[in-house]
């Protein structure tokens, strides 16, 4: 299972990377979103999968699956959401003021 997940994560990372290397704002932002999916799954996977029951006392017996990565991912999800929200707004404000959504055109003068 872990290996399959890792392959999936690898593909997601590749896709994210390809998007991040795009010129278009939205594609880059989507790239970061895909990357954060990949990262969350990676934390989950490397922490060990299906190693036990749902980490809820009273819902099953030990062993429980490792709860710590879950807590970490939760935090990561929230942070990545916050960043994405900010990023989106920043992106459109940039587009509004600069008139372009193409990073190739958003270079700026070399010595501004």
């Amino acid at each position: 299972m872990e290996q399959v997940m890792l392959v999936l994560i690898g593909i997601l990372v590749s896709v994210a990377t390809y998007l991040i290397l795009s010129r278009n704002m939205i594609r880059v932002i989507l790239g970061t979103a895909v990357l954060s999916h990949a990262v969350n799954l990676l934390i989950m996977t490397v922490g060990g999968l299906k190693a036990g029951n749902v980490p809820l006392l009273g819902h099953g017996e030990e062993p429980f699956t490792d709860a710590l990565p879950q807590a970490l991912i939760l935090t990561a999800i929230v942070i990545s959401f916050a960043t994405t929200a900010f990023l989106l707004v920043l992106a459109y404000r940039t587009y509004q003021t600069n008139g372009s959504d193409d990073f190739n055109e958003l270079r700026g003068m070399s010595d501004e």
Partner: protein
Amino acid sequence: MIETMLLIALALFMIAIALHVIRIIKGPTMPDRAIALDTIGVNLISSMAIVSILFETTAFLEAILILGILAFIGTIAFSKFIERGVIIERKSDH
């Protein structure tokens, strides 16, 4: 036996989702995609229900309800976006 049936059901739901993904990719129109995504959400609800039974836990039942709510909100947002380009209006036009 029951487990096998449930696993088959799950796989079928996944296939359904996969077909909807194809619809999302193919389009051709935005509403097509919106419907497909909405339906994926609905299918996920079913999948979660089945997983709950497979794992013999009620821990995931909240997710079912939440997904129902959120898929609905998402669909409203999409349709408003498609229809008006604006999801939340400043003033009511009534």
